[in-house]
């Protein structure tokens, strides 16, 4: 049933969960004259699906690791011709690229209205870094593992 999880897989599980959790916290915080005027998370109007996409990618990575480790589902060795290590690298880099794009994007502000990243964005950003590092560690670990002749 359950197999021992490697450190990169534990990091992917934690990173994916953190990513999904962060998506429910404030992505943007709005302030008028220094006073809080509300917030919106990645699932809110105007941000769903573009801001939600990185969280869904992270959640997919964590789900794959969880299913492989804790369920009896027999995972195919490859997905669309890619090894699972490659899938994790691709998904984590895509999520990181999107989070970086959101970071670089100018935030609109009007007169007194100030828009800043909320805790949700920062949680998602940290989780993305965890996912990228974990995916690369997973790939490196597979390369180091001796193969059967």
């Amino acid at each position, binding site marked *: 049933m359950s197999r021992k999880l490697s450190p990169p897989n534990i990091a992917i599980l934690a990173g994916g969960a953190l990513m999904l959790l962060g998506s429910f916290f404030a992505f943007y915080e709005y302030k008028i004259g220094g006073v809080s005027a509300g917030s919106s998370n990645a699932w809110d109007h*105007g941000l769903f699906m573009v801001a939600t996409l990185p969280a869904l990618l992270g959640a997919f990575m964590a789900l794959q690791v969880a299913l492989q480790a804790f369920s009896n589902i027999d995972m195919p060795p490859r997905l669309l011709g890619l090894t699972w290590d*490659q899938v994790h690298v691709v998904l984590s880099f895509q999520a990181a690229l999107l989070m970086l794009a959101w970071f670089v994007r100018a935030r609109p502000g009007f007169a007194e209205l100030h828009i800043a990243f909320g805790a949700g964005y920062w949680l998602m950003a940290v989780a993305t870094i965890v996912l990228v590092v974990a995916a690369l560690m997973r790939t490196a670990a597979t390369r180091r593992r001796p193969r059967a002749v």
Partner: protein
Amino acid sequence: MNDKSPTPAELTILIAGGVMLIASFFRFEGDTSVWGKYVFPVAALLPLYGVIMALEVACTSLAGMKLPRRVAGFTWEQIHLVLGLMAGLMAVAWFVTDTGKKPIGQWIEVAGGIALAVGAVRMQRERHTGAVG
């Protein structure tokens, strides 16, 4: 120049990438293009993926250039599949996202992203990579 004519999948990618690059200068959200303030670079990823894919096809299939067989452990067919599917995913995401009335630029980028995904999947069949079907 190469005398080999591009395959249907390569043509799909070439046309989609080219059209997406042109459409990237049209209005995407409100009065701004994907390169404009408040939109760049989140929306610019879509045409960028299209341009990368189209450039590779143009270099190898039209100009007959020889590129390294693998990049960071990925074959070019895998890179096309990954970029195409991610472009398709982002296209669907932009389609679903409420950005108010969608200008023509956004519709073309969404259609282009889906065309890239279709072209990339079709390329796997043409080149018998075994990745699909």
